[in-house]
């Protein structure tokens, strides 16, 4: 099994990195669980969209990126932020609307940006980040760096016209951009198939863009596919469209409790047979990369990280009221 994990050259990851992938996924899951808990206790205001179930996409994609590569994210964006290297404390601070949050409390859950690691920000307009990330790729190309840029979006964004416009420009200009579609099969309360025509992959191939459907719950598959896309981008080979099949375990947002639009059986099937963390943990253990006690330590570490993050966020002061007028314009 060990060999299998290491099979493709681009996916060769040593034990440390493999454990890190696991640890990152777990961090996202624990972060989301804690955030939902805090929300239920009205400690987080506004809107909250959990990415539990989708951790492998965020982690697998970002593991293939450098710090200076770009990403931008969505309303369901905590995982992407964490995977790209955000500090948990500053993230909680942002969710609380605190001064030490990534956006000084001005953005909140749907708008976390983190310039230090190329996170151009989460975006609350479905599809809104797609041209922006494509523009970052254009910029990378013009500046002759070998940076790549990743746009995360959901299956719902497949039907926003801006996707066509952006992908077309990326294709004609051979831009180093990766369109990372997280297909969790629902856009809010509407099943994807009901509102999405044709074979999704062809939205890329029809424009001559290398496209692939990937098991988004297998972090190594995500990593492998992304590495290929990153290589293509850095080599000047142009854009890639990756469709990651995955599932969100909870409701669309915190008010979506009953989820009448899908069955409990379907949820159970994803949770029990295809959970990205369970599957990866089992594989790591089988392959001898992780011992049960290492797993325990990771869990303990992550719990500590989350606890300290919440503490940091809690301690952080609210922004000064005057802050409201700051940053409307840059100097």
């Amino acid at each position, binding site marked *: 099994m060990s060999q299998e994990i290491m099979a493709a050259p681009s996916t060769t990851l040593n034990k440390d990195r493999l454990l890190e992938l696991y640890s990152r996924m777990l961090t996202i899951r624990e972060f989301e669980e804690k955030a939902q808990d805090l929300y239920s206790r009205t400690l987080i205001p506004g809107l909250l969209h959990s990415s539990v179930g989708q951790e492998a996409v965020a982690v697998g994609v970002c593991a293939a990126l450098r710090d200076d590569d770009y990403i931008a994210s969505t309303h369901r964006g905590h995982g992407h932020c964490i995977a790209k290297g955000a500090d948990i404390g500053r993230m909680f601070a942002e969710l609380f609307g605190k001064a030490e949050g990534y956006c000084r409390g001005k953005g*909140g859950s749907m708008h976390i940006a983190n310039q230090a690691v190329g996170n151009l920000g989460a975006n609350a307009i479905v599809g809104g980040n797609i041209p922006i990330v494509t523009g970052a790729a254009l910029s990378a190309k013009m500046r002759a760096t070998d940076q790549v840029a990743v746009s995360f979006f959901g299956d719902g964004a497949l039907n926003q016209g801006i996707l066509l416009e952006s992908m077309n420009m990326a294709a004609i200009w051979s831009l180093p951009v990766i369109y990372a579609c997280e297909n969790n099969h629902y*856009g*809010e309360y509407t099943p994807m198939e009901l509102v999405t025509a044709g074979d999704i992959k062809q939205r890329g191939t029809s424009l001559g863009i290398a496209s692939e459907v990937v098991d988004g719950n297998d972090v190594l598959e995500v990593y492998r596919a992304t590495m290929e896309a990153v290589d293509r981008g850095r080599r000047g080979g142009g854009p890639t469209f990756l469709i990651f099949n995955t599932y969100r375990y909870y409701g669309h947002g915190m008010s979506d409790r009953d989820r009448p639009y899908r069955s409990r059986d379907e949820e159970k099937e994803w949770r029990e047979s295809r959970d990205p963390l369970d599957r990866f943990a089992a594989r790591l253990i089988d392959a001898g990369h992780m011992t049960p006690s290492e797993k325990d330590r990771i869990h303990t570490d992550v719990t500590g990280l989350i606890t300290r993050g919440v503490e940091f966020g809690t301690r952080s002061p609210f922004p000064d009221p005057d802050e409201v007028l700051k940053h409307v314009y840059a100097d």
Partner: protein
Amino acid sequence: MSTPTEGREITFAQAINEAMHEEMQRDPSVFVLGEDVAAAGGVYKLTRGLLDAFGPERVRDTPISEAGITGLALGAAMTGMRPIAEIMFGDFLGLVMDQIANQAAKVHYMSGGTFNVPLVIRTTMGAGRRAAAQHSQSLCAWVAHIPGLKVVLPSTPYDAKGLLKTAIRDNNPVIFFEDKMMYQKKGFVPDPSVEYAIPFGKADVKRTGTDITIIATSSMVQVALDAAEELAREGIDAEVIDPQTLTPLDEASLIDSVKKTSRCIVVDEGYQRFGATAEIAAVIGENAFYHLDAPVHRMGAMDVPIPFSPILEDQTIPNPTAVIKAAHTLVGR
């Protein structure tokens, strides 16, 4: 003050739902389309029950394609249907302004009056939900700026139902703004058996008064009424008047009120600069000039992207305290 003060109490959301339900029953050409409006009954449950009552042809879940939704609705409106398109958040108007402003607004005129556009676009406005900069705006001024559109801002369940019925029956594109913080607010509305509709272009005096006129729209009507109540305790008698529609704007009633009171505050939840308060203040300033004892005072949303943090967001929306303070300044006591 046409709003009833007794009878059946329902929420703003229910009022809107009833208006759609009744009009769909009355006229088979009325239909509803939008994201999650059918099976889920809408994100705010505004369209609840419509799918069961009218079936999936007339209550359509769409893809997340706001420009497409609007354009399709327009094409249907030009060819015998009377669509009600829901744009989930008013902020998303940015995606559909071409279809609204360049297309829907101009079809009747450009075609020399041959095509009509009986189209309603329902959308939201209003901050306060900690939904941050892209889900909190009140962009009514954008559409009010465009000739050919009608723009409606109801402030009570009664008004919402009556104005939405008028919107659905109107042969022009109507943009209907619903303050999302108001959906659960209750108010008296006549029994469904009592048919009524509220004409466009008639301001509604929500409170009569003699010392100062507060012109307020949508969510700000309650803010104005709250302020007026406190002012009354202090001996300042404020008139609160709600234009109900920005286009057509009942300039005469607004001007008459100010001529009577000699002082005026305009409160609206859109950004203040180049917003609805500007137009209304300019109209008053020009037409009640010789009756004004003090400058018209405008109060819109603070001119900043709407911040997430409650301590910041709360400062951006006009509130009763601020209105009271402004009234004191204008009245001079």
